[in-house]
């Protein structure tokens, strides 16, 4: 007997590993989860876990250099990125690990929903999964904050403003988030503790419970039409089926999961190598007001939702809508704990998934483009390139840029996207209507009657009316402005 084998036996005799872990690893799973193409549906959970393990390991390494102090965290991250050996890769892996975990936890949710695996007896698996989804998002959010750049500071402020909207507990909740009344010395260490100790501890506890339940109740078999779940008979039927036709989880099914998990780890490292960590967005000085805080990509859908929601629905969007989504997720296994799991009998399930995914993806794209953000950096176009003929129009072009119209409106591709492109506005609006809208505001357009002098409005309207007007007859904008002006 080799020395290694003898050492193993020494441990095994005392630890009893092959008696306990062996049968556990080889517990029987439904055949279709361990064979052919269908086996590949059952890998999202371990993929998420792999990403989580990457987060724990890279996160632990990051804490050896990160200083959770409001005054020093930013510099310590710059140090990690630029000076520490492999620090850039480490930060990149933690960033893409977070992205991977968010993506995979959502894929896992979709898989479990589509296969109806939340039904009896696996309701607790679903509920602990919902808790893990929330914890994952909370970790993503607190992680964005711990970067403690400009974005991080304003992330806390936004978090406090959200907390303040909770009924009854609003103000204390906001103070709880800030660790005081303002962003201050206590704020960051608080989130460091949440992100590094408390939430991970909760995640580990819930993952343990989640995995215990998978072994306890068995992985759900691939749904078959005409085989509804009946709590009276399901458990006995399942155990009998697995006993008769099941295959050992290790290695028949587990190899796929581990291959996917390894693929996740490799992809995280590759992305980190190629793209690096998320760039820092300026020092975390809350008194610097020229900041452009924007959330990480996985929250852009919500960022977009906040831009599109009608005014007056703030508390609804920030408190009740998330609460409603949470309640729906929690209620699902209670409302539909029995019955058909097959998609043939649940045609609405893929419809819900596709509709929800479309909404989320659409909002994410909108949030990444963020057309509502004022284009603060736009350079004025030279009036001579715009084909202006009258001095009034040239003066209008000057006023247009001097008064900041370009923050929201684009001309010839230069300027913001919040308001309509004004390159061809003369084809859509008569000058009188332009004047009215500048004066009184229109939709999201502010009213400029107290900001611009009547002469400036006349000039701007003349400018807009002559734009792209090279091939059209002389504009008559002046008259419209005159009329509107006198009527006022």
């Amino acid at each position, binding site marked *: 007997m080799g020395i290694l084998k003898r050492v193993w036996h020494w441990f095994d005799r005392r630890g009893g590993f092959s008696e306990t872990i062996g049968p556990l690893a080889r517990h029987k799973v439904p055949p279709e989860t361990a064979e052919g193409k269908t086996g590949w549906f059952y890998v999202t959970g371990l993929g998420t876990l792999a990403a989580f393990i990457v987060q724990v390991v890279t996160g632990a390494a990051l804490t050896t250099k990160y200083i959770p102090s409001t005054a020093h965290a930013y510099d310590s991250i710059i140090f990690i990125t630029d000076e520490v050996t492999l620090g850039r890769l480490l930060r990149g892996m933690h960033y893409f690990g977070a992205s991977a975990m968010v993506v995979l936890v959502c894929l896992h949710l979709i898989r479990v929903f589509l296969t109806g695996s939340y039904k009896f007896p696996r309701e607790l698996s679903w509920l602990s999964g919902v808790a893990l989804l929330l914890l994952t998002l909370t970790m993503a959010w607190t992680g964005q904050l711990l970067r403690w750049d400009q974005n991080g500071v304003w992330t806390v402020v936004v978090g406090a403003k959200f907390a303040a909207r909770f009924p009854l507990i609003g103000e204390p909740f906001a103070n709880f988030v800030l660790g005081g009344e303002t962003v201050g010395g206590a704020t960051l260490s608080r989130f460091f503790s949440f992100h590094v100790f408390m939430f991970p501890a909760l995640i580990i506890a819930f993952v343990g419970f989640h995995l215990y339940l998978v072994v306890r109740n068995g992985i759900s078999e691939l749904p078959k039409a005409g085989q509804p779940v009946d709590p009276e008979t399901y458990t006995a039927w399942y155990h009998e089926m697995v006993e008769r036709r099941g295959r050992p989880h290790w290695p028949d099914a587990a190899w796929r999961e581990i291959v996917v998990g390894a693929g996740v780890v490799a992809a995280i490292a590759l992305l980190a190598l190629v793209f690096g960590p998320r760039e820092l967005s300026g020092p975390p000085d*809350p008194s610097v007001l020229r900041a452009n805080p924007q959330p990480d990509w996985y929250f852009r859908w919500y960022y977009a939702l906040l831009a599109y929601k009608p005014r007056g629905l703030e508390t609804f969007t920030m408190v009740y809508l998330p609460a409603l989504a949470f309640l729906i997720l929690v209620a699902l296994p209670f409302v539909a704990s029995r019955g058909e799991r097959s998609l043939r009998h649940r045609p609405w399930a893929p419809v819900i998934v596709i509709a929800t995914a479309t909404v989320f993806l659409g909002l994410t794209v909108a949030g990444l483009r963020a057309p509502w953000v004022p284009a603060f950096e736009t350079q004025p176009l030279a009036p001579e390139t715009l084909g202006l003929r009258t001095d009034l129009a040239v003066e209008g072009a000057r006023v247009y840029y001097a008064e900041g119209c370009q923050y929201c409106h684009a001309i010839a591709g230069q300027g913001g996207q919040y308001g309509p492109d004004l390159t061809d506005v003369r084809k859509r609006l008569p000058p009188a209507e332009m004047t009215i809208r500048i004066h009184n505001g229109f939709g999201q357009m502010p009213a400029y009657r107290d900001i611009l002098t009547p002469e400036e409005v006349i000039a701007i309207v003349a400018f807009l009316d002559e734009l792209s007007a090279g091939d059209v007859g002389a504009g008559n904008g002046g008259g419209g402005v005159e009329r509107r002006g006198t009527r006022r």
Partner: protein
Amino acid sequence: MSPLNVELSLVYAVVNPRLAPLLIAAAVGAVAAAPFVLATIGRRRRARARTAPRVRIVRPAPGPAAPEEGAAREDGRDDPISPGRRRFFAAVGAAAGGLAAAIVAVPFLGVLFAPVRRREGAVWRPLGALDDFPVGETVRVEFLDPAPVQWAGFAAQGAAWLRRERGQEFVAFSAYCTHIGCPVRWMPDANLFLCPCHGGAFYQDGAVASGPPPEPLFRHTVRVRDGQVEILATPIPLPTDRG
């Protein structure tokens, strides 16, 4: 503090350091009494079960029923522990565990929730000499938080937008957008406060001009004393409509 926050009195009790020893003592007392209470309840319930008519509850058998240890030995004379004592032991174990958890929970919750008590701390902070502020110009002013800690570094600084209207009359706007709290910036060319997050815009008097913000910009109180302009530094203004 609004009357609604009374719901939090429990949290405040935990937060109040003077109450901590009292809470721990109460927990110890409750836990010490718990085994006796639990054992008594158990005895009553058994007594009731003996007199009450039997109702058969049919449940699907969860596999082969393992004989309960105590029950198997019920008539065995050699078991030195009576079922009642065994129940008492279980209650002692549960209570001791609960006690340990309660003792650790007091300082944990106390420190975790300490910041929920708003200290109502508004402090006057100097902004500069009166003559440094030209009439009609909106400028960014920096000032120290109402209650900074020593090590806060730049996090101790806050900022606002200040404009001298005329003479000694000032107006100061909080930089926190009333939508979700991003920093609005004064655009002197457009004469608007613009928010970089969702394009919210405010007129120079702080009223909403456009975009998603639900309310006008929060105003700070400003005063002039001995030729010095001072601002009342307050906690981060929170939305007024909590509906």
